[in-house]
């Protein structure tokens, strides 16, 4: 049974390290300024690179003349797309971009040339001397217009003749009989929803350094989440021997999915370094970070949801258009995720989704925290709230009734193992005081609930192969120190610390005797990267695998000395102890030395690969399949000012089933950071572009941290974490993900709370004051006719003899 640990109290002490509130291995380095991020690295003789970017949203490149730039004093090299003609794309089936554009630019900000110069000023001056002649082409800013232009002009050439080159992916999947389910439903709720695009906005801008040596050796330092994929793509696109290419990933200053594929700067620093023989650094400006994007896709969604009179879901039908931007990026996966990840934590006998991703002439969208499933989750959880409203069922109760359960399969045949969703609902219901608040707060104040699920990694890697998804290597020193070589990417989530906790637990070594070297393709085994919430589950299991191999040798050697069985030797707390006889012990260091004497130099590798039989057999069944799923439920409490439409989110209670909290401090940090980011998308952030009517179509509306408003400390609501531990049978010590799942419910919980507060349904994001104010005006103007929900609220309060709010509810 899952156990609730409010505030993250440590679980029952069955471990010596796991579950304790611990520091991170890199916490003090980061708090003292010692941590060296990519831009902190200065190499002797280093040049500075800059990328010239397209001023047009869509244009043919007629010519590029870089001769004047090359002649400028201080300029060492200029490169263009011709130097790097091999296309790439993070998904091997959709390689549709080049490090620098060859003959066409597809968004304002697309790279066309790069220079390396003695300093940044000279590099900037050189960019101004590169002459590019463009022939402008018609541009698309709406996915609907792009899809409608069936005969072109196209943003990309169709992959097959006769196809629409503006459509990048279409997925249509149906499970069960949706039409029959809807026909038999006692209530069918329909709604149109719009999720505006948002972007990751890590505080560290992208940065990369290239260094070339004789004999074809290339080193690239980069603020990336995916050193392995970058390694592969650098070698492939630049036609280099991968064994001579090294990718080093220094500490990354935030990523959130925004650094999870190769970017132009990494190819450019490599090429410029090879051309000049000097190290070359490129640091994006903040504006370039906004244009690099790869963030949340805008989604246009239509849902029909049917339920019986008890609120049991009967059928769900979704029609989704994804605005993909100029390139494919992870879009193939996003299109599947837009439907595949909706099928838990609620049972649904019939489900259909039809998702179409379009190219538009804007920066490419990709994966942002909660890839592809945050948008449908918003719409769907609002739909559930409407069903609860219609049937007069408490929204938490409605969700409980539809709970899919543990150890089961979803309608689209995903395997669910552990599932602590009910405990999540219980936790937020109790902590938020739900029963005394829902429908009982005065007008202008309200609470809302939502639930969700998310993957703990994907069962299949980005490129097909039969090798492990994650690997580590351990090395033991005679001093008792254990070094871990980890291929995983520390991006602030605590990957390096997690490795140390697991190895310390298995080998009984104090945490301070563990060293972690990570993210260096010359020295660490392959891990596929910090994406899709895979690291704890996969790397954690790989660490257990490696440590247990090593432990076996230590146990054998000590058992021999004690004339005992290996299984009787326990390693914990810095000691090797004899089971059942605590008087017999030696230090772990001595135990390691015995093992080294017996077996030679000590070391072990460990790996993890996903189970491959945990999904259906239909086309696309592998996308969305994960070894385990996390579950979340949030309650948000809001205050809405009816005069201005301003939504003040006062607090979010976050309950999250992470399987087991290996370190509750870090789990809470992920939960709070996720809820913060969801809150930000709900009420503040919009990654939008100017239209032709506004002049300069395709320009980012607000490419700065002042104008693209991310929440400050004063904006952010109070956040309370409620850690739920369902102990997954396959996770490391039962752990599942915590980094992305707890973002999802924030947004619909806020939407539903707004409805509880003022009786309007907010179906378009963000819930900015103008939108909320307009919704309030519409409701008032429409009166009883078009605003069933709002009136229902007023009516309900009358029935309940509600205080004060009733009069206000019907007054502008």
């Amino acid at each position: 049974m899952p156990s609730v640990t409010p505030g993250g109290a440590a679980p029952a002490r069955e471990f010596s390290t796991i579950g304790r509130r611990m520091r991170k291995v890199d916490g003090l380095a980061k708090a003292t300024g010692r941590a060296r991020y990519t831009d902190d690295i200065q190499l002797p003789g280093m040049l500075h690179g800059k990328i010239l970017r397209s001023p047009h949203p869509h244009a043919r490149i007629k010519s590029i003349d870089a001769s004047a730039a090359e002649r400028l004093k201080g300029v060492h090299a200029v490169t263009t797309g011709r130097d790097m003609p091999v296309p790439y794309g993070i998904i091997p089936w959709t390689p549709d971009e080049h490090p620098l554009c060859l003959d066409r630019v597809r968004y304002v900000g697309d790279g066309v040339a790069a220079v390396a110069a003695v300093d940044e000023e000279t590099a900037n001056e050189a960019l101004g001397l590169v002459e590019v002649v463009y022939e402008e082409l018609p541009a698309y800013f709406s996915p609907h217009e792009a899809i409608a232009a069936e005969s072109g002009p196209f943003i990309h050439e169709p992959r097959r003749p006769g196809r629409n080159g503006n459509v990048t992916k279409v997925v249509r999947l149906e499970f069960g009989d949706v039409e029959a389910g809807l026909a038999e439903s006692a209530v069918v709720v329909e709604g149109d929803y719009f999720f505006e695009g948002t972007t990751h906005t890590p505080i560290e801008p992208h940065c990369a350094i290239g260094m070339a040596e004789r004999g074809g050796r290339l080193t690239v330092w980069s603020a990336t989440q995916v050193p392995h994929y970058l390694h592969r793509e650098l070698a492939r696109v630049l036609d280099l021997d991968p064994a001579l290419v090294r990718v080093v990933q220094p500490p990354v200053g935030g990523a959130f999915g925004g650094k999870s594929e190769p970017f132009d700067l990494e190819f450019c620093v490599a090429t410029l370094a090879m051309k000049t023989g000097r190290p070359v650094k490129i640091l994006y400006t903040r504006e370039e970070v906004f244009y690099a994007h790869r963030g949340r896709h805008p989604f246009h969604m239509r849902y029909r949801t049917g339920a019986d009179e008890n609120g049991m879901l009967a059928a769900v039908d979704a029609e989704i258009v994804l605005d993909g931007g100029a390139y494919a990026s992870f879009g193939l996966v996003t299109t599947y995720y837009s439907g595949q990840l909706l099928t838990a934590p609620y049972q649904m006998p019939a489900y259909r989704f039809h998702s179409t991703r379009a190219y538009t002439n804007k920066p490419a969208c990709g994966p942002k925290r909660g890839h592809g499933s945050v948008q449908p989750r918003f719409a769907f959880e609002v739909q559930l709230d409407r069903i609860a409203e219609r049937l007069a069922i408490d929204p938490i109760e409605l969700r409980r009734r539809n709970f899919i359960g543990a150890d089961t399969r979803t309608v689209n045949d995903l395997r669910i193992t552990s599932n602590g969703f009910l405990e999540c609902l219980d936790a937020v219901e109790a902590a938020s005081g739900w029963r005394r608040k829902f429908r009982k707060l005065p007008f202008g104040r309200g609470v809302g609930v939502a639930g969700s699920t998310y993957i703990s990694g994907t069962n299949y890697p980005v490129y097909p192969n039969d090798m492990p998804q994650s690997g580590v290597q351990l090395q033991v020193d005679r001093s008792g120190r254990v070094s871990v070589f980890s291929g995983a990417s520390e991006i602030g989530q605590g990957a390096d610390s997690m490795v140390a906790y697991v190895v310390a637990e298995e080998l009984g070594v104090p945490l301070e005797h563990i060293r972690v070297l990570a993210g260096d393709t010359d020295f660490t085994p392959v891990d596929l990267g910090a994406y899709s919430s895979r690291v704890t589950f996969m790397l954690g299991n790989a660490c257990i695998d490696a440590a247990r191999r090593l432990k076996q040798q230590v146990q054998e050697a000590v058992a021999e000395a004690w004339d005992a069985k290996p299984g009787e030797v326990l390693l914990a707390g810095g000691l090797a102890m004899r089971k059942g006889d605590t008087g017999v012990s030696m230090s772990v260091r001595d135990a390691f030395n015995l093992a080294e004497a017996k077996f030679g130099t000590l070391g072990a590798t460990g790996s993890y690969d996903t189970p491959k039989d945990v999904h259906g057999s239909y086309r696309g069944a592998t996308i969305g399949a994960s070894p385990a799923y996390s579950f979340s439920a949030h309650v948000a409490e809001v205050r809405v000012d009816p005069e201005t439409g301003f939504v003040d989110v006062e607090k979010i209670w976050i309950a999250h089933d992470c399987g087991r909290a290996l370190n509750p401090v870090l789990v809470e940090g992920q939960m709070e950071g996720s809820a913060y980011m969801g809150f930000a998308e709900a009420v503040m952030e919009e990654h939008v572009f100017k239209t032709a009517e506004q002049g300069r179509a395709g320009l980012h509306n607000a490419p700065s941290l002042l104008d693209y408003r991310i929440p400050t400390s004063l904006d952010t609501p109070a956040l309370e974490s409620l850690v739920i531990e369902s102990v997954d049978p396959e996770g490391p010590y039962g752990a599942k993900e915590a980094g992305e799942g707890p973002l999802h419910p924030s947004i619909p919980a806020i939407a539903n709370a707004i409805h509880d507060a003022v009786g309007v349904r907010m179906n378009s994001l963000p819930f900015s004051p103008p939108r909320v104010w307009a919704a309030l005006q519409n409701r008032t103007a429409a009166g009883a006719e078009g605003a069933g929900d709002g009136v229902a609220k007023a009516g309900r309060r009358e029935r309940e003899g509600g205080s004060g709010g009733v009069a206000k509810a019907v007054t502008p």
Partner: protein
Amino acid sequence: MEVVRLTVNGDERVCGVPAHYTLLETLRYGLGLTGSKQGCDKGDCGACTVVLDGKAVLSCLTPILEAEGRHVRTVEGLASGVEPHPLQDEFDLHGAAQCGFCTPGILCSAAALLDREPSPSREDIREALAGNLCRCTGYEKIYDAVEGAAARCRA
């Protein structure tokens, strides 16, 4: 090129930098103090915050000539020997630094706060950190850390 003199973390430094350099550029490129970060280079994110004569300032918006002759304290100057400043230790303890990129600036804002207000309320802390964007934590752990440090500084 200008020759500027300023006191950085207690050391008197003389540094030749282009006249258009900011304090941040001087710290990072002139003096090799890379603890202070550049997140936006236009005063929006606060990652470059340092303490200038006791006040938290945005070093990316401070022309170097304005810092001439003044006292600058950066994240590298908070610790006493190998002992971290209570703020740094509490950030570590509470997991208040995730990616850590905003952390040096937040620590400087918090250090300036604790210097002028040894017993800040949570609201005081929120106010003092309003110019420092953190994208990872949701701020809760940061408040806990500043409160913990304030208590230790008072003790």
